[in-house]
Each structure stands twice: as structure tokens, then as C-alpha cells.
């Protein structure tokens, strides 16, 4: 237990901060994922074959390739890409990008592919009559989308989005390979310096379980909120 003490003697405060970092990365990645879904869901539903192809390639590649490989691509490739852009502007020094940004972006792109599929499924399962009714009421495009389609989509999407959130949360453990100090990395450091890996990795498992448990409870509430009237 003294291993978990707060302050200089234990790892309690470090692990607490690491847990906050995991939450921060997960939320950032989830938001980046939503942004990607916002771009790619319309492309998936579009009638244009070329746009379809782009969106399908995105979701197929990301969902068919291991997360770790994607993270390595961003970790090793991200710096190169930024330095290449900088060199065009005449800046040739070494640039190191923040591990948080690289990690959140890599996980965000992965989570976005899953979110895209969820939103596509949800929009497709909305009754055609709803679109027609919105047209008949003379709503403009924005009103139709935000007042009629989106609330219904959310209701259908939330259970599946909660799965995406779980996947995203667990995927953030992989960012530890890039050195970002989240739960996994902090446990690795603590396990190395105390030579007690069994305790710290088990504790990390408990922290992840706690995070999934609490987030499931919160999502269940959201689900209830959005199913009002059903």
C-alpha cells in the first residue's frame, strides 16, 4: 500500500496524474474521431462513387491494420512530415512534436473510422419518411439535419458509440510506446524502479476497469436522455 502513497515516497500522485492524462487523451482522440466522422460519413452516404471510394478506403484500411502500426506511422512519420513542411519555409532544425498531439491524433483517426461506421449505420436506419416529412414541412437543409435527423441519429448511435469509446480508451494504452506518460507508461516506470511489475500492472488494470465502469454508467444516463419519447 505504501507504494501507492502520495508524495515523494509513493506512486499515488504520479498514477493519479497519469489517469487524468489517459482521460484527456481519450477525450481528445474521441473528439478528433468525431471530426473525422463528420467529414467521412457524408462521403460514405454520397451518391458520388469517387467520394464513396475515399471514405471506404479510410474505414477499411484503418479497421484492417493494427492500431500499433498506425501509431508507429504517426510517431516516426509525424516528425518527418512536420519537418518537411517546415523545410519548405526554410526552417531546417530538428522539430519534435508533442507526444500528446501525435498520440491523440493517431488514436483519433482510428476512433474516427469506427465512429464513421456507427453514424453511417444510424443515419441509414432512420425511416425515409422522416426525411420526406422534413421536406414537406419546408425546413431548410440545416433545420432538417439538426432538428430532425441528428437527434434521431444520436439515439440510435449512442449504444454503438459507447463501444467506440471503450475501444478508444483501451487503445490509448498503446500510446505509451511513444513515451507519453499515461497509465501504462507510468506503471512501466514505477514497475521498473520498484521491481514490482505484478503490483503496478495489476493496479493499471484496476484503473482501466474503473474508467470503463464509470464511463459506462455515464453513457447509460445519456442513453436514457436521448430515448425520451420512445
Amino acid at each position, binding site marked *: 500500500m505504501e507504494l501507492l502513497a502520495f508524495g515523494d515516497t509513493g506512486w499515488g500522485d504520479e498514477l493519479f496524474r497519469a489517469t487524468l492524462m489517459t482521460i484527456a487523451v481519450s477525450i481528445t482522440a474521441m473528439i478528433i474521431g468525431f471530426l473525422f466522422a463528420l467529414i467521412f460519413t457524408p462521403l460514405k452516404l454520397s451518391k458520388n462513387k469517387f467520394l464513396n471510394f475515399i471514405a471506404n478506403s479510410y474505414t477499411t484500411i484503418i479497421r484492417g491494420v493494427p492500431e500499433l502500426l498506425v501509431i508507429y506511422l504517426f510517431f516516426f512519420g509525424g516528425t518527418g512530415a512536420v519537418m518537411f513542411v517546415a523545410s519548405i519555409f526554410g526552417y531546417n532544425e530538428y522539430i519534435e512534436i508533442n507526444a500528446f498531439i501525435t498520440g491523440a491524433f493517431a488514436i483519433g483517426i482510428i476512433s474516427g473510422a469506427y465512429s464513421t461506421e456507427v453514424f453511417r449505420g444510424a443515419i441509414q436506419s432512420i425511416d425515409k419518411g422522416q426525411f420526406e416529412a422534413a421536406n414537406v414541412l419546408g425546413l431548410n437543409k440545416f433545420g432538417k439535419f439538426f432538428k430532425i435527423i441528428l437527434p434521431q441519429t444520436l439515439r440510435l448511435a449512442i449504444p454503438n458509440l459507447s463501444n467506440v469509446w471503450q475501444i478508444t480508451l483501451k487503445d490509448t494504452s498503446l500510446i505509451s*510506446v511513444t513515451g507519453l506518460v499515461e497509465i501504462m507508461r507510468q506503471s512501466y516506470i514505477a514497475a521498473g524502479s520498484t521491481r514490482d511489475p505484478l503490483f503496478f500492472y495489476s493496479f493499471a488494470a484496476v484503473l482501466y476497469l474503473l474508467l470503463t465502469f464509470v464511463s459506462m454508467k455515464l453513457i447509460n444516463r445519456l442513453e436514457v436522455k436521448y430515448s425520451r419519447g420512445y
Partner: protein
Amino acid sequence: MDLELMINSLPKLLNAAVITLKLLSVSLIIGLFIGLFFAILRLNKNIFISRFAYGYSYVFRGTPLLVQIFIIYFGLGQIEYLRSTVLWVILKEPYWCAIIAFALNTSAYTSEILRSAFQTIKPGIIEAGKSLGISNKVIFYKIQIPIAIRQSLPAYGNEIILMMKGTSLASTVTIMDLTGVAKYIISTTFKPIEVFIVAGGIYLFMTFIIHNVIKFLEKKYSFN
């Protein structure tokens, strides 16, 4: 784009893909048996037994696979007692540690898939078996299991693909699987995009094959 590097790294990556496939197939086979075992426990009428099975799948599905591998590979070696038993022959090998972690992880998901498959079997089918005078054991093996397998094929296909991606974590415990070799080539050549295209392409190809095999099986075992 460095085409030469892509061509040169292809044989190395293909060799590594064989290791990925080995890890995948061994852990899937072990995981299927453990998963079936836990699915049966889950359906037990005894609340403690079914709760235990639920807890098992909850813990393995609620924590990252990386934590599970690290607990087994780094953590278990710490227990002095284990080091003196026969188990240590297995546990000191990263290869087997990875397989144990993958098998336990996939068994948790498999048990959920099988449980819901068992639960969707219509009671009438079992009753029909009973009224024909077939013993409970035969009903289970000859009626319930075949139907459950058919029901769970689509979900299990997804699980195989997820597990294939999961095997990439073996590279974190020094195993040179497809991702491990890809990372090695990236870190020595600093050409992430080229290597990603080749390694990612191999992964996608494997996903494609698995997807189609499952589709074929689904058609073969469909009721109509």
C-alpha cells in the same frame, strides 16, 4: 517514395507475417475452448458460477490487451514460487506469454459471443429434441452447439480480425511479428510511410482472406 526499400522489405515482412498467423491461430484455438467453457458457466443456473463467468469476461474486456500481456510477461515472473515450478518453462518464453494473454483475451469475447448465440436458440428446438427422446447431452452436442456455431459466425469473424490486429502487441514483448519487424525497419531506415504501406497491405490482405472465409462458411451453414 523508396520503391527499392519496399521491395527489399517485403520478404522479411512476409516471414514475420507467418509468425503473426501462428500466434493468431494457436491463441484462437485455445481461446475457443476456454471461451466455450466460460459460455457454459455463464448459462449455469447457479448465480455464483454465472457471476464468476461474467466477472471473467468483464475484466478481460474492460482492460487493454497491453496490460494483460505485461501482467503475464513481466508480472508473473516476479512470483518466486512460479519460478520453481514446471510452468516457468512456459512463462519465461515471451512467445508463450503472448499466446496465453491473447488466448485469455479472445476467450472472454468468444464466451460473450457464444453465450448470446446459445440464448438466441429457440426453446422449441430443444423441446423438439426432448420430445423425440434425445438425451440432454446429445441435445447439447448435436443440436445446441451446431446452431450456436452458425449463429455466432459473423460476430466470431469480427473477433478473429480484431485478434489478428491484437497480435501486433506481441512486438512489445520482443517477439518479431509483422508489426515488430515493421517497427524495426522503420526505426533503422526512417521511412515510415513505405514500410507502413507494405506491412499494412499484408495485414489488409489477411483481413480480406479471413473475411471471405467467414462469408463462405456463413453461406455454407445457413439454414436456407
